[in-house]
């Protein structure tokens, strides 16, 4: 590959500067690429969320209808002269449309949405409010974030570590009874989490009355923080278990197959022939080369947490981000939809970028920009 700057003549110097420019060029081109991808995806989301502008028509009709019926019901306004009232009605409608920015043509507004999103200026929601009464998208998201982090964080972290260690143990006992059991149970993951949720609610809430049907805490909300935490924990068990159950066996199966592939490499056989302890072989010959994949999976898991689980949250009435996004779609509330999407897109792009660099550090076989 061509190297742009070559002032030094020493062979060693030339090589290091070559590597540096190569890495820099790669980093910059990768960053640009990721940024362009993010911009396109966010713009597409904006277009879809507005139906290419058709939502404007719906919203204008809604404003007209609501304002007109409010005028009809207002006794004070009925005494006005009809002409004055009609002017006032038009003015109110125009004001409402202006508030939602509907008088700006959609193409211009769509780019304004995009610009605001990219600068993380999330702005204020059109219809939704946070529980504390704010219309700021930032506050709406922040208010729901803890619930989602609690549910998704608990279940995803538990899933990740438990399946990883179980799979490692299974790969040591290839074709044992437990191995076969896991293989037999792996089709259980074709069923989505909310579906397990229904059965868990049926058994533990409806039949046994052990755990609540849904929600985040008991009503009335406990004032003591310890009671609050215990109550939330009690409500967490069912949704978290349904999320865990839905991918538990397939996840073990996938990790197990993955470890098995790496433990049938020639260098592992070589290590065995040398007489290394199985602990040593596992740590240095099997786990080491699998590290990049494990890191990737972990990173993707962390950003996956951000999205929440729309349907599981709906079934369990869990006040998380997934439900907020679902409600925002129902309200055609573009700022909220775009707000959650842009943060996810940024997190994903950032993770992918960091992973590229981490890969190069962890895995000597990967050569940047080569």
């Amino acid at each position, binding site marked *: 590959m061509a190297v742009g700057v070559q002032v030094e003549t020493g062979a060693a110097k030339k090589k290091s500067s070559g590597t540096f420019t190569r890495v820099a060029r790669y980093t910059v081109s990768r960053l640009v690429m990721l940024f362009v991808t993010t911009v396109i995806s966010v713009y597409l989301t904006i277009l879809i969320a507005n139906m290419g502008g058709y939502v404007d028509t719906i919203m204008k009709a809604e404003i007209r209808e609501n304002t007109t019926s409010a005028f009809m019901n207002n006794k004070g306004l009925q005494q006005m002269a009809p002409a004055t009232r009609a002017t006032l009605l038009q003015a109110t409608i125009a004001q409402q449309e202006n508030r939602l920015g509907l008088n700006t043509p959609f193409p211009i507004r769509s780019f304004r949405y995009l610009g605001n999103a990219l600068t993380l200026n999330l702005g204020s929601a059109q219809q939704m409010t946070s529980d504390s009464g704010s219309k700021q998208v930032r506050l709406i998201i922040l208010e729901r974030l803890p619930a989602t982090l609690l549910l998704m964080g608990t279940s995803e972290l538990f899933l990740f570590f438990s399946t990883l260690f179980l799979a490692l143990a299974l790969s040591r006992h290839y074709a044992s009874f437990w191995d076969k059991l896991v293989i037999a149970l792996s089709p259980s993951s074709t069923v989505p989490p909310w579906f397990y949720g229904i059965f868990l609610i049926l058994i533990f809430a*409806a039949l046994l009355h052990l755990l609540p049907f849904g929600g985040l805490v008991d009503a009335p909300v406990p004032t003591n923080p310890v009671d609050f935490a215990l109550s939330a924990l009690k409500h967490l068990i069912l949704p978290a278990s349904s999320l865990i159950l839905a991918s538990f066996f397939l996840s073990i199966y996938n990790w197990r197959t993955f470890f098995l592939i790496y433990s049938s490499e020639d260098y592992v056989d070589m290590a065995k022939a040398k007489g290394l302890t199985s602990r040593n072989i596992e740590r240095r010959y099997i786990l080491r080369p699998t590290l990049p994949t494990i890191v990737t999976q972990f990173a993707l898991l962390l950003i996956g947490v951000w999205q929440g689980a729309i349907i599981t949250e*709906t079934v369990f009435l869990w006040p998380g981000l997934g439900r907020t996004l679902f409600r925002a779609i129902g309200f055609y509330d573009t700022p909220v939809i775009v707000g959650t999407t842009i943060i996810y897109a940024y997190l994903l792009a950032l993770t992918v970028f960091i992973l590229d660099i981490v890969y190069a550090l962890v895995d000597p076989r990967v050569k940047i920009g080569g």
Partner: protein
Amino acid sequence: MNNFKKTLQDIARYPSAIIGAFVILVLVGVAIYAMLAIPYQKAITLWRGGEDVWFMNPKNVPPAWFNFFTAKKQPVSFVINDQQGQMTREVKTHSDGSQSITLTYSFDYQYDYFPQDILLYFKAQFQAKQPFASLVWMTPDGRKIQVSNFGVPNLFTYRFSQDTVLQAKLHGISPQIALFADPKSPDPNKPVPLKGTYQLVISGVTWEPNSDLTCEFVLHGQVSGLAGTDNYRRDLMVALLWGTPVALAFGLIAAGGTTFLTMIISAIGAWYGGWVDGLIQRITEVNLVLPFLPILIMVGTLFSHSIWVILGTAVALSIFTGQIIAYRAIFMQVKESTYVEAAKAYGASNWRIISLYLIPRMIPTLIPTLVLSVPSFVFLEASLAVLGLSDPTLPTWGKIIDDAFNNAALYNGWYYWILEPAALLMITGVSFALLGFALDRIFNPRLREA
């Protein structure tokens, strides 16, 4: 042909594959039966029908076969009219043109619980003066209870449970309980029904020469049909039957469409390379950032509720995923192989190489992927229905679950309402998964366990 036979023999060695394939065949059979027995238009009319279609059904009751598993029997719904049940009709014509019509309905009640309601659907023909009817209830132990008497308009429904006058006469106990209660019940607060033959006698009088009075007797039991009923009295069987073709069609079309299109597009990208390949890769990267479910929800809310539009969107969004990258890697290898070089040497066209040399190499890995992705699409339809985004006309399994959830079925103890569609979804998903995993092991022998 030989290959095909060998594959079949391979499949026969996996019992899970046989079970899976058998269940899928049964489901296909059910789907065909459903479409033949209840044509599309009829299914929609039935499912959207109200009281006029489903009046003979009770509300929210489990299926009739629940009685097989309990010692104490729940009453089963039945109808008595001209065509079915024991009913006699006596007409006496008087000299002044008036008629006395006596309708006697008798039935055997051998259940341990009380019915949900009793209804009489009257139809009367008259010019100016309404016919008059008086109702007498006769219990097996010989008691005669005056139920009510009233003039009958053209169409009239008399509900025993809604008659407050009758309830007051029966010491405040709901008529559908009081009329069946054994007066010698051990605990008067917990009455038990008296078993035996009951009779309802309707004595009607019409005043005009061409006037007539007919009536249909409907008892709403506590169990009904093979699948039970929902809150609109609809027989769930209609939706369970019709859910089968919808689920199979959705799953198979989406899975087939996604896998084949993914393969063809990645083959084209790998073969032509250059900007085509680059474009496909960029689209994939953009698509990985787009949130799948939220976009489907937006399309469902904003664009169209039609199940086929949502299916198309789901396919389009599922094409450009990690799978296309995996296929591309394999095609890049195949592209370098000698037989492709030979094809190029004899002057084969691009399309010939793609369709006859590249794609056939992928079929073995493709079939298991296709079968394995069917359940996820079947469940996707159900998932969207649970969010309230299902086709408003078609009855589907997911929609039953959604209806049940909206009516707090689990909280109210109507478990059958959720369990029936859930069981069918589960059976469909697991059978495709069993077959798919077995096929995966057959076509990709490296995965085969000891």
